[in-house]
């Protein structure tokens, strides 16, 4: 194999595919990137077997072939070469990377050991969607996904079709995020790890992204590449029954003011210290106090309809929800201090963030 390409282009395809490569993989081969050159194109594949990312680049091909190279090292080596053309070739078990003077000779892995991650099998016609909108929606619901590998179901984002559009849902059992994506229809119900979805924006994000599900894998394809993830096979909690039917109390509050106030309260609170919201007719008093440190209190004017109530939330969970809504005014709807509260943007019901309080 022997190719020539621009340094920046080559570094880009290697780095993006390399994002799927785990740092603690049991198999050494999974520390590598598969580079496959044929018909004028270099295809780069990285995988940890759960997530696979493939990128492609048109290059000057002097000789076709395949190799597996150490992912982090090669991407870094290419990036650190002087700007300009880079030549990339294999011989005698080594990859030679040169450009304007410096020459790296790096051991290659045996390309035959690279797992068959089914890159070529086209997953069939996918559902096409606006890439930017998809990524924004995933970022919004993803905050509610769990990182706890002990409960894999909760690490996923549920994709489902709700009447005529796509709905994304995630929950870590303390909060639940539901995002409706209008204009996208025909997605089959599936649960995909958020850890994988979060890579879409960083690796293959583009104007158009299409999604397909086949053989227990979900794949997202754009003109910048493909991200494939193994779906989570357990069934997602029945989130609909977690959403209360009605909320007797409603606070309408400036989003930035609330975000800044919670930010100040968070300085004092640690993860287990909640911020108290005293809801009353003229607005809300936020307060946090810790025996060993001290406290912080402030009042924000707002419109509140409902009975006076003191409800407490984990500061991080509240911050996540408020920060995820880029809007002028928020609604915080509540039932009582032990039942979930619902955050939505006042002008956009497409995203709902349901949050359980902290019992004082």
């Amino acid at each position, binding site marked *: 194999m022997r190719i020539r390409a621009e340094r920046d282009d080559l570094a880009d395809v290697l780095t993006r595919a390399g994002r799927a490569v785990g740092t603690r993989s049991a198999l050494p081969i999974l520390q590598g990137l598969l580079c496959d050159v044929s018909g004028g194109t270099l295809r780069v594949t990285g995988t940890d077997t759960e997530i696979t990312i493939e990128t492609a680049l048109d290059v000057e091909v002097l000789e076709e072939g395949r190799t597996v190279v150490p992912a982090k090292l090669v991407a870094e080596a290419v990036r650190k070469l002087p700007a300009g053309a880079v030549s990339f070739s294999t011989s005698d078990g080594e990859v030679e990377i040169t450009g304007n003077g410096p020459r790296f000779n790096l051991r290659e892995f045996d390309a035959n050991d690279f797992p068959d991650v089914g890159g070529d099998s086209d997953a069939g016609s996918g559902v096409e969607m606006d890439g930017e909108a998809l990524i924004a929606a995933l970022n919004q619901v993803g905050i509610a996904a769990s990182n706890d590998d002990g409960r894999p179901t909760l690490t996923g984002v549920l994709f489902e079709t709700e009447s005529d559009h796509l709905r994304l849902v995630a929950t870590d059992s303390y909060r639940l995020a539901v995002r409706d994506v209008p204009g996208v229809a025909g997605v089959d119900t599936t649960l995909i790890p958020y850890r994988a979805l979060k890579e879409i924006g960083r690796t293959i994000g583009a104007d158009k992204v299409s999604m397909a599900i086949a053989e227990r894998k979900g794949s997202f394809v754009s003109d910048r590449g493909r991200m494939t993830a193994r779906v989570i096979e357990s069934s997602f909690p029945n989130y609909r029954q977690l959403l209360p039917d009605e909320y007797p109390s409603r606070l309408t509050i400036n989003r930035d003011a609330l975000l800044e106030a919670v930010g100040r309260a968070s300085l004092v609170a640690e993860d287990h210290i909640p911020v108290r919201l005293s809801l009353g007719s003229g607005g809300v008093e936020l307060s946090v106090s810790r025996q060993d440190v001290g406290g912080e209190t402030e009042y924000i004017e707002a419109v509140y309809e409902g009975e006076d109530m003191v409800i407490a939330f984990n500061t991080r969970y509240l911050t996540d929800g408020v920060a995820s809504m880029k809007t002028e005014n928020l609604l915080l709807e509540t039932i009582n201090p032990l039942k*979930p509260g619902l955050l939505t943007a006042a002008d956009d019901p497409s995203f709902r963030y349901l949050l359980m309080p902290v019992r004082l």
Partner: protein
Amino acid sequence: MGYRGGMPDFAERFLHIDMDAFFVEVERQKDPGLVGLPVVVGGLGRRGVVASASYEARAAGVHSAMPIGEARRLCPHARFVPPDLTSYSEVSHQVFDVFRGFTPLVEGLSVDEAFMDISGLRLHHSSPAAAGEELRLRVRQEVGLPASVGISAIKFISKLASDAAKPDGLLVVDAGKELEFLHPMPVRRLWGVGEATRASLEALAVVTIGDLATVPERVLVSRLGPSLAHHLSQLANGIDKREIEPGGGAKSISVEETYSEDLRSGEAIERALLRLCDRLSSRMRRSGYAGHTVNLKVRFGDFETQSRALTLGEPAETTPALWEAAQVLLSRIDRSNRGVRLLGIGASGLAAADQPRQLSLEKQPRHVAADVVEDVRERFGDAAVFPASLMRQEAKERRDE
């Protein structure tokens, strides 16, 4: 530390106090007829073990953790008494109240022993020995029980000293004379030396702590691994940098059971474990704690013991929450078809259960139910309410009784 009021602190500032034959002495308080007789407290079933033996029984060779059958053989005329944990726990609280009234720097080690830092008591007592005697006297007067005290400038040596002072005695190891005291002792008296380590050391011709002190640490590393080698090498040379960590006593809560016959079926194991979770929950709720970490211990018929721990998203103290964790832990145990001799379940990372608690979206009527259960048990005893899946067995046991 240093100086207070112009007077130097005690050099021998670590005090270790250990109640003498604690369970036995509590039993003797309840039943003075036991005074002067050999007494053994322990599980009386076929696989029960000795929890505590009086000095009269120890003279016949009985010691704690010995199978009860062997104790009966060695000391047939001893009085055998089943343990009464509620009383021991009550008396333990009284004892610790005395300790904490003496100095706030108390580090509880178990129900009946503690370390203290007495350096600040210089103004109240003329010498470390006088402080120690005063403490022993207070325990005797206020709780009515004997205790032994060891005092040293080095923390772990104070514990060895209290042991050497038993029964009902006091020993101060003077600063500078620690190695004289320490080196003739067998190595297994050091913390961290179990049977396997003792055997490894014996292969190096190390029998006493003094022998151990002469072996270079790098030689120990190859046999014991770096951390244990370093630990033992330090102790053998009288080096122990640990300070008193006030608190303790209740860093974890656990319950365990040894079965008179090995549990073989998965169902029997799960059932026994569920019952332990229920007992643990009851103890935790009564003490007002919830635990962030749940620990499972399983000992097989061949005496191999496996432990697994799980840290939870939110602290648990209800039976369903503990049971959920216990099932996960049980699935991580490699049983290889062996019978189970002992099961233990515990919670650590304790936090007061009434601290603010993040609620979950998942439906959990558990707390309400658990509160009711506790209430019923307070009034009618533990057997009044238990998980339905234990029903068949409980009913059977009652028939058997």
